[in-house]
């Protein structure tokens, strides 16, 4: 649970030192390619590659395991449902009523499932190795308006606070005999209403105080903002970025012109 609020793993590996913009562009390019391809082998390569990148970047097994725990149930579910509901072509391994299991649809289901995992791991390459502020500075440097970046940062910052407040209010209401886990779902949802109202009021007050606090620290001064740690785009970042873009272009061409990775097997 706590990992969800604190994805970044501090460190000084090559992955950490990489410019956050390069990492973000890598996520975009890799995701685009994965979404265009359906090959089981491509998905396997991406998944293994992502693990290698994470490990060489000093990301802990705990974090990698956490992603697996989050994605694995979905992956299994998708693979199973795919095999059941998309009857495959070719020779059937098993055929019963509408069920038709073939090597082809097993491969297809696996590919679709592994793609979910690969996409998640590629996203977490960026999230695990980039501090929240570098992440947002990177997005802002790529053209996101600063106020949006700040809003995003604050949303992330106050998520745990709000969760804590929710817990606090629930406990307080329970102490006054509010029953939260009794009855049917509708009743339970209704029982949460007083908590939601109290949360809303707290959130509004926090937001109001926050806007005052921002203003009293010269937010919105009519000057160009600077940063304590400016982003440094090193030659190595440039090299890597060029590599990523070239590889993406080449693979894109191979996919579209030569049909690379078009089929599950």
């Amino acid at each position, binding site marked *: 649970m706590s990992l969800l609020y*604190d994805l970044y793993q*501090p460190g000084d590996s090559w992955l950490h030192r990489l410019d956050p913009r390069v990492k973000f562009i890598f996520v975009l390019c890799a995701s685009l390619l994965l979404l265009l391809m359906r090959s089981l082998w491509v998905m396997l390569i991406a998944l293994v590659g992502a693990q290698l990148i994470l490990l060489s970047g000093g990301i802990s097994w705990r974090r990698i395991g956490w992603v697996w725990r989050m994605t694995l149930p979905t992956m299994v579910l998708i693979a199973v449902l795919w095999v059941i509901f998309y009857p495959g072509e070719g020779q059937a391994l098993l055929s019963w009523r509408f069920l038709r299991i073939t090597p082809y649809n097993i491969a297809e289901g696996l590919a679709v499932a592994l793609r979910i995992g690969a996409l998640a791991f590629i996203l977490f390459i960026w999230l695990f190795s980039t*501090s*929240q*502020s570098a992440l947002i500075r990177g997005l802002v440097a790529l053209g996101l308006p600063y106020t949006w970046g700040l809003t995003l*940062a*604050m949303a*992330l*910052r*106050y998520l*745990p*606070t709000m969760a804590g407040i929710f817990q606090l209010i629930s406990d307080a209401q329970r102490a006054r005999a509010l029953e939260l886990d009794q009855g049917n779902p509708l009743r339970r949802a209704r029982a949460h209403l007083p908590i939601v109202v109290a949360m809303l009021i707290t959130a509004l*007050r*926090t937001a109001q*105080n*926050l*806007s*005052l*606090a*921002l*203003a*009293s*620290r*010269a*937010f*919105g*001064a*009519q*000057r*160009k*903002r*600077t*940063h*304590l*740690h*400016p982003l440094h785009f090193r030659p190595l970042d440039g090299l890597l970025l060029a590599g990523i873009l070239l590889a993406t272009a080449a693979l894109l061409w191979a996919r579209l012109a030569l049909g690379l990775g078009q089929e599950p097997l």
Partner: protein
Amino acid sequence: MAVIRIEDFFYAYPPLLPEGQPIEVLHGVNLSVERGEFLAIMGPTGVGKTTLCLSMNGLVPQATGGVARGHVVVLGHDTRTTPVAELATRVGIVYQDPESQLFCPTVEEEVAFGPENLGLDPAEIAERVSWALQVVGMEAYRQRSPSHLSGGQKQRLAIAASLAMLPKVLILDEPTAGLDPVGQAEVFGVIERLCRERRMTIVMVSQDAERIARFADRLAIMWQGRIVRVDAPPRIFTDQAFLEEVGLAAPQVSELAVALNRRWGTGYRFTLLEEAEEALRRDLRGGQISS
């Protein structure tokens, strides 16, 4: 020269509903704060202490709207017309709720936020961050997340974040309310250092009579939307009739003095523990009071 000059300041918040009445809070406040002084403000809840603080950095009325009359002048700038972002480099403010004034992912970024808004260059920002964190004794926490700090540390960080703007005046609105005794002592330790070592002008709202008696140069009492009295803390804290009228509590030793005076007809006027100890020891030895 007065650093802050408030003259006949009247303020009403805009009505909460469109057809409603404006909410009158300040009814002609007069107050002046001298350079390098530590002025404390006390008053019952809802009397408008926070509103007064906000008027000193322009958020009232610039951010809150409503109706304002009279003047609040800080270092020669009228806070009703000078942009808040500009005032922010002269007046630092620390609010009561630590949670909603610390919004950055790390301690150092929290302190850097203000200077970054001013567009200073990174070297200058880094220098200010180090300096401000050192003043409040938080250098060791640079990379921590503010939400993982203790209450006292959070408020010290909020002070550092204000100091990084190099203000001449620091306003603190009940910075120790809701802190445990350790946190309260930490925060007062920092404030005392700013006073003694840097001669910073400090305005602090607080209900901590003991510490006001110990540290503040003057105490202003707010009552029904006005400042009704400004005086040296010992003189206010020994004026029982006045305190009762405005519903405020004196430090406990002052209440002890009142009780002793009532019992034995003595004329004690102490507000600090040391003073009480000295006077009582002297008189017990001299045989002036005995059971």
